[in-house]
């Protein structure tokens, strides 16, 4: 079966905005130039195999690689929206805040699944929103 997809620059831009708004990617994936990503991830796999991936020097060199790759990508970025989303990824919150209102006040939704007060037991902590990829069936992130 052959599937043909026709797109244009505008459609591609909208789709990338939708994807970037929904899925916060780690910087080494979102910002690494394609030609350097292969070498970066090979090195990471090798260091992991050798059991030195958590060595301070290895982590320093990885950080330097990531920074150099991101700087190169940002320098030639054509879609500044990806940059603004990246700055949100670097921070502790996402680019969009989520709230539930009960008519009197609003509560920000954080990790986990939030329920209306009438459907839940007395809450110990503020509602939390799940971040990152969906949980696996085993319930582990």
């Amino acid at each position, binding site marked *: 079966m052959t599937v043909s997809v026709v797109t244009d620059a505008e459609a591609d831009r*909208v789709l990338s905005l939708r994807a970037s708004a*929904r899925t916060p990617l780690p910087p080494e994936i979102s910002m690494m130039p394609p030609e350097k990503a292969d070498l970066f991830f090979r090195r990471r796999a090798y260091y992991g195999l050798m059991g030195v991936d958590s060595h301070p020097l290895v982590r320093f060199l990885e950080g330097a690689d990531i920074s150099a790759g991101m700087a190169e990508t940002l320098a030639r970025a054509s879609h500044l929206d990806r940059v603004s989303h990246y700055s949100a990824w670097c921070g502790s919150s996402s680019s*969009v*805040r*989520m709230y539930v*209102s009960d008519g009197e006040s*609003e509560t920000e939704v954080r990790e986990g699944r939030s329920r209306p007060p009438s*459907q839940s037991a007395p809450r110990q902590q503020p509602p939390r*929103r799940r971040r990152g990829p969906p949980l696996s069936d085993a319930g582990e992130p």
Partner: protein
Amino acid sequence: MSQTSRYIKDMEHGIIAVVGSGKQGKSCSLHSMLEIWQPDRPVCILDPIDIDMSVWPDRYSHAEKPADIPVGAIAVIEDVNRVFHSRGSSKDPTLQKWLGIISHRSNIVAFTTQCLAGTDLEFLRSQDTIIVNKMMHEEDLGFERPEFRESQAIANEWILAADENTEGYDRRSWCFFPRFNEVISVPKAEWWNDSHSKMFREAVL
């Protein structure tokens, strides 16, 4: 408190535009927002069609033309493309004249529309406009104005994300506010029912 609620509570005049495909909760959310964030101001439904006002709360009234909107009131227009046709302001200056003085008369103009492409640009460029996005179907998104298509696409994704990450909240309660980058579940006003969502069921065109 969200930036959105703080801003709308302090709004003295301006435009609130609720955009989304049919039956996505535009009218319900609009009236519910007014109920919780602007509870003390009179609301005037602006429509040339006769409306049964007995089903609406006491602070609601009906007006057939902009000149009948009282000072300080919130003018609500259901399906603004039906009442003020796109490009109509190029033939009839009434809309321009009215929007030019709503700041003097402390009026908020709140309307619903299925697509801003059919909405007169005067609503969007002459005043402080808060756009509220509801879900918009993919087919409708293709016809939306290019300058609003991106924020609507992002709104769709965040409304779906909000629906997935919460339980017990109707998906139609979620509203995305692109100016503040916030998605909020607005609770339905206690008095809202089918007689309000189908207010034109018996209307004579």
